């Protein structure tokens, strides 16, 4: 089985799992959109628009909040562009990334990484694990204190996964651009890049989904 096939399966499984998960945990449409709404048959469309709405910051968000949201939105757009340009030719045309797709991919993914790092610097403190969030430690200490929401833990895990994967994803390309390594190492670096990209994509999907779920929870039950 090739890496392309593995990637396809992994992406489909990830999307399916999140979709199934959302079906079970999704709040009632009446709670979400209000009972008095018209044209209830448009609910699926409303559901699609919701993630876009979630990008906007709260009214009371400060400059840092606005900037963070702006960077997150930029990251989302750039990720989408990078994802499409990276996988369109491989999945649909069965060939390597080349041509204008490659050029756009290089530009968008470099910008994505730049925005991502900026966003990380702005929000890294919010994603630091507290010992209490570690289920293993909690069991070990027979802790009975306040439980942490699993979505929050998931969000943090995915944040660090994204940051951790940024390193091989970017370093592999940087090293391959330098006249340091021969063909075999070059091929290994490209393989590292592809595997990292696959895992990075999964992490981003799960992060975005968890973030959306968290936002939904806050919308439905403010405070």
């Amino acid at each position, binding site marked *: 089985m090739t890496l392309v096939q593995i990637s396809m399966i992994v992406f489909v499984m990830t999307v399916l799992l999140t979709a199934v998960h959302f079906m079970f945990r999704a709040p009632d449409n009446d709670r979400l959109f209000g009972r008095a709404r018209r044209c209830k048959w448009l609910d699926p469309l409303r559901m699609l628009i919701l993630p876009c709405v979630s990008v906007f910051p709260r009214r009371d968000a400060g400059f840092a909040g606005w900037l963070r949201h702006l960077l997150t939105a930029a990251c989302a757009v750039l990720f989408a562009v990078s994802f499409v340009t990276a996988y369109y030719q491989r999945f649909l045309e069965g060939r390597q990334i080349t041509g204008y797709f490659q050029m756009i991919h290089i530009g968008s993914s470099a910008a994505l*990484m730049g925005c991502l790092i900026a966003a990380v610097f702005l929000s890294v403190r919010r994603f630091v694990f*507290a010992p209490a969030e570690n289920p293993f430690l909690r069991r070990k200490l027979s802790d009975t204190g306040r439980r942490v929401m699993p979505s929050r833990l998931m969000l943090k895990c995915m944040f660090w996964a994204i*940051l951790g994967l940024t390193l091989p994803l*970017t370093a592999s390309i*940087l090293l391959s651009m330098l006249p340091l390594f021969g063909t075999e190492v070059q091929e290994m670096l490209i393989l590292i890049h592809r595997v990292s990209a696959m895992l990075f994509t999964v992490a981003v999907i799960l992060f975005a989904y968890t973030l959306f779920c968290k936002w939904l929870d806050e919308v439905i039950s403010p405070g």
Partner: protein
Amino acid sequence: MYLGWIENSMRDFRWYILLLLIPAAVTAAADGQDYIGDTSDGSRSPTVHILNLYDEQGTKILPSDEPLLPFSLRTTCGECHDYSTIAGGWHVNFNRPGVNPGRRAQPWIYADPTTATQIGLSYRNWPGVWHPEAIGMTPWEFALHFGRHLAGNLSEKDEGEAVDYQARWMESGTLEINCLACHDAEPGHDQSEYAVQIARENFRWAAPATGAFMSVKGAARDMPDMWDHLLGELPEDPKKIPPTVYYDPGRFDHDHKVFFDVSRKIPNNRCYFCHSNSDVLTTGMGKWTADQDVHLTAGLSCVDCHRNGPDHMIVRGYEGESEVSANPLAAATTCQGCHLGDESSVVSAKGRFAAPKPEHHGIPGVHFEKLTCTACHSGPRPEALTQPTQTSRAHGLGVHGPEKTASMLPHLYYPVYMRNDRGKIGPYKIFWPAFWGRRVDETIEPADIDSIRPLVEKALKDAARPDGEDWPEITVEHIRTVLGGMAKLKGFEGIPVYVAGAKVYALDAQGQVTESAHAAAGPGSWPIAHAVRPAEQALGEKSCEECHAKDAPFLFGAVTIDTPVVGEGSRTMTMIEFQGLDAGYMKSFASTFAARPVLKAVLFVIVFAAGLVLLLYGLRAAGAILRFLDPDNKDRQEHV
């Protein structure tokens, strides 16, 4: 008609006599016997060839014979080697039906300034070349034109059913396989003499004449029709000397045997006679400034790579040859085979001849999928405009006599980077066909050159000829005259056309000359394999911008369109038009290379920043965990 019948009957009669006289050693092939020269006991020491000389009939030649006859390679070498098997070898099987032509190679180029013709010919079915019959060239004429660089194996039998009344096979003899052309390692071997003998129609004397211990005087060309060399009859004109061979009597031993310094290890200089290239502008006719192939510099010889067994199906050494060749070394003997190894090879190839493993530092792997090795390592580096070049076979390099000017036809240009049959881009030599022909529906084919020659020569009589070996300066009026004349020729079918300079010229209903494009007007081409340049001189070694720049010759170099038509000579095409690439994209892509240093800096900052955050928070997390696990830490419950 009557004379022709007598002539044919005589020829047939001679063949019957020849068949009766073929020695037993040669007929052993029919018995399926192994020839002593084609088997080996495993010794790596060379066989010393002290041989009897046999004439065409298989009779042993003695220095006292009167008249002295030239020795025949078929009977002399055929005593120990299977001549019929050798006749299937790559160098001599060119006109055998059913031979897979493999990758296209240099065709024979018929160039005639008087008719403004330059056309690629080959008996092999390669794209862009024509079978000699297409221009009415018979095997006899083919032998006369190109025999100077043929390895032989042409005879009256190759004429087929058609009778060429101009042919003089009886007087000239057959063009036997010239074993000495390759295997004679004696310094006194003169392959140029072969060309001289071909020009004199001394086919049966040509190969022996190249040897160091014999010489040939006279010319069968000067002998009358039906002249028989066995009868030793002299022509009436005392100035005309019949072909006569002289042997060095000192070379015969007591048993009338002769030592042949022939070798299985072919000297490079033997190969060079037919496989030399000359860069017209840079090195010119002189060769002292030209470097040779890196493999030869490293101590290899041509036949270290280009090997063959008794069948003489020599390895050509191109990627994919193993798919069409039965040579067990075909897969191993490619650039990749020796330098990287080839899993499909039946022999262990990686590192043969101490071939270094290429590192290709910093070169993305996609280059190896889209380019041939030769794209970066072979031939001259590309320049803003393609350069003229000459080759042994096209220009008769190495042949004494004819003056070879820089502008002589055929006009070859290189390097042109084109896509090969496997979709990879590599360097090629090209020529632009120019010929008078006919168009039937959408098919264009050349006309019989002899049938239109008087017409064309008359029409082009007043065309300016700055150099007798170069193109005549043809005007549209000349083309109109010739095409009009061709249409009136008796038996001429189709629409007369002139193909030149990537265009097809024809007459419209009003008799005006029109121009159009057609595949037949496209360039003839063949890949450049040598001379191979080392890594330090490879294309792209200096920087990526050698190819990825908006004006990089590799992509955007100008390819000369060669034509005799006045006013069309300055036209060029861009290299990328031969590569099937999008010029707009390649220019856009090239422009990104200016931003590459910035991109690398940005990526470095990103990697550094991500690494720093991970390191700092990783250390912090490790410290927190250690503190948390410390049983003496009384504050740990407060964290919960």
